[in-house]
């Protein structure tokens, strides 16, 4: 075991896969010589060479399209999109091509592409460095969509994604690259070494795609969330002294309905939380599924907490971000409902 932050854990996952499988290649803007603007691919080009770790032109559509072609010809590409906010030029390639290739060719062609992309706010990045677009990818049939909330899961899920024959869109909440974040920007930053999930095996292991995790057991209420918000929700529940069950969804597609349903049936109350905008967001899918499966066990309506339905504003970051206060208000409302 070693202490790793999320950047090191992701780097280790790619290092291991480049070492194990000569077909694994990495490509993206600034990922090669420089090691990526967040340094997630640091040192990999030096170790594996320019033909395994490729700097690319600034063309997200080209990056994903080339990754598809490489995948069809037997490689296992890991493409980086520098910020999730810049994934849209690749949207057509992802939605119309990558997601549907296996289906339209009746399984004769497929492209085992992993698309890594940093997402989420809390870094004063304004509207083009803060978005959480996971919901619009989860909505597309044929894509697996994951988002880890800690270094251990980040490494295990990334290895699983690279080994997966289906395309995976891998969202990395950049606010927690260096440490868990409970939503309070005025507190000093906390490193991953203070968190049990900062302990990461040095070798190969996987965290299966499609499995949620109960990160805190409790009986009062279920909080269903993922990414940075896992830490915010834990803190919000603590601040209220609630015995909350906190579930990290980890994998949006496929979704581990069973773990979620078991929890909500047990507690009878549920709040769904994500950083992304609310309207048409992935929280709607979670809430609807839980309502269908758990209706007769519910003691209160399921509430959603999310970012407001506006573009991500630079100056009002902390009024926008669904912090502990917004989560606590929803928890209180769900607890008070009779």
């Amino acid at each position, binding site marked *: 075991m070693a202490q790793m932050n999320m950047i090191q854990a992701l780097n280790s996952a790619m290092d291991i896969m480049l070492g194990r499988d000569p077909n694994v290649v990495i490509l993206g803007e600034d990922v090669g010589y420089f090691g990526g603007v967040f340094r997630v691919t640091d040192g990999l080009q030096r170790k594996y060479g320019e*033909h395994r770790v490729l700097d690319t*032109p600034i*063309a997200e*559509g080209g990056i994903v399209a080339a990754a598809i072609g490489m995948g069809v010809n037997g490689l296992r590409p890991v493409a980086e999109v520098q910020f999730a906010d*810049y994934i849209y*030029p690749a949207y057509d390639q992802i939605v119309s091509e990558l997601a549907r290739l296996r289906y339209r060719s009746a399984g004769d062609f497929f492209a085992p592409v992993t698309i890594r992309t940093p997402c989420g706010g809390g870094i004063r990045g304004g509207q083009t460095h803060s978005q959480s677009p996971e919901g619009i990818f989860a909505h597309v049939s044929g894509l697996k969509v994951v988002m880890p909330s800690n270094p251990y899961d980040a490494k295990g899920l990334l290895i699983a994604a690279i080994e997966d024959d289906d395309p995976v869109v891998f969202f990395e909440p950049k606010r927690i690259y260096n440490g868990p974040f409970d939503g309070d920007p005025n507190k000093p930053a906390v490193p991953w070494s203070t968190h049990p999930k900062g302990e990461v095996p040095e070798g190969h292991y996987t965290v299966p795609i499609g499995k949620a995790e109960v990160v805190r057991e409790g009986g009062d209420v279920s909080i269903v969330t993922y990414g940075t918000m896992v830490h915010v929700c834990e803190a919000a529940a603590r601040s209220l002294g609630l015995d909350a069950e906190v579930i990290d969804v980890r994998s949006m597609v496929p979704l581990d309905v069973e773990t979620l349903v078991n929890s909500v049936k047990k507690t009878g109350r549920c709040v769904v939380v994500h950083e992304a905008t609310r309207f048409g967001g992935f929280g709607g899918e979670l809430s609807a599924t839980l309502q269908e499966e758990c209706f007769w066990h519910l003691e209160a309506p399921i509430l959603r907490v999310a970012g407001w339905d*506006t573009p991500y504003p630079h100056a009002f970051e902390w009024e926008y971000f669904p912090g502990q206060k917004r989560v606590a208000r929803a928890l209180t409302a769900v607890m008070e409902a009779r």
Partner: protein
Amino acid sequence: MRRSRLHTPKPHARPGETPDFSYLELSPAGVAPRPDINVRVRDINGLAYELIRVLDDEHRAVGPWNPHLDPSELQVGLRHMMLTRAFDDRMQRMQRSGKISFYMRSLGEEAVAVAQCMALRPTDMLFPAYRQQGLYVVRGRPLVDLMCQLLSNTRDMCKGRQLPVMYHWREGNIFSISGNLTTQFPQAVGWAMAAAIKGQDDIAASWIGEGSSAEADFHHAMLFASVYRAPVILNVVNNQWAISTFQGFAGGEHRSFAARGPGFGMAGLRVDGNDFLAVYAATQWAAERARMGAGATIMELVTYRAAAHSTSDDPSRYRPKDDYDRWPLGDPVERLKNHLIAIGEWSEDRHAALAAELDEHVTQSWRQAVTYGTLTEPPRLDPHLMFADVFKHMPEHLKKQEAQLHAELAGE
């Protein structure tokens, strides 16, 4: 180990290596011919490879591209470039001291925005990227206004919604800057098509870095501009680097960026971007050509990004520390200054006095700007502004969320 036959572009030098700009094809000043405004594209393919230059090594203005500007106009150009630089310099330091969250300098490429804007009409519509702050200086937007945007304060033109440097100015005919690269390039073409449809005399101009020319939107812009002969100038600022990636990764290894023009049936000019006179003259040519309906021009401005990509970047990780010192096209401010001195219209003393005056102007502007608030000190923008302008009229779900925020902030 497998043997890969893949070609991967190599920059001329990485940290610890000696800069070598021999890859850069240079023509002597005064050599490139200046064709008629309405020349056929096939007759000027050469201009996409040659380098249009006016200022020679003795600081003289030579050749057919000399725009023969009045010395007083050259002095205005020098002033604009120096003010742009003084502003950049101070804002960089303000970011370092935590007053603003982010900044991007145009150090070393000030002639691009300044000379081009001076060669255009005030009614021409500009679609810049994030490194053309010189456009605002030339069109006379008070620095205080730019600083207020950087501070996201109560006078911020973007009402706190945009990252620093993403300005806009409707009255000044400068379009809103997007953080997403190249998106504004084909939009400028659309604006120009509308100008043609409406019978307007105005043209559009847009700017991207050479790295951004890789995006598909670049090709959309080129195609629509050439198909409809839109009155537009499409500028590619080749400052050699796109963050850590050198221009070879955008296709610059094999041919110039200006040479994309002839491929689309569009005029392509390759211009010394640090030569104020050459940039001015080439822009004047392209603007006249566009205005008379003879078609769009793609202009490659060969320059060097002397500063870091942004305040989040550290270029010593990917290029030699002394790269800029060896850059063969020099510094645009120094070159225009030396020319003015050579023709007896400037002196070191006047230069120093102007630098001090501009510095003081920046200082005074900053003093005023911070009285309207900073990111951390009051007065603050009203957070409820976050919900305005998502739509023209606020729909119910946003009204509800606004009320929720109100309750959250009131601690109810």
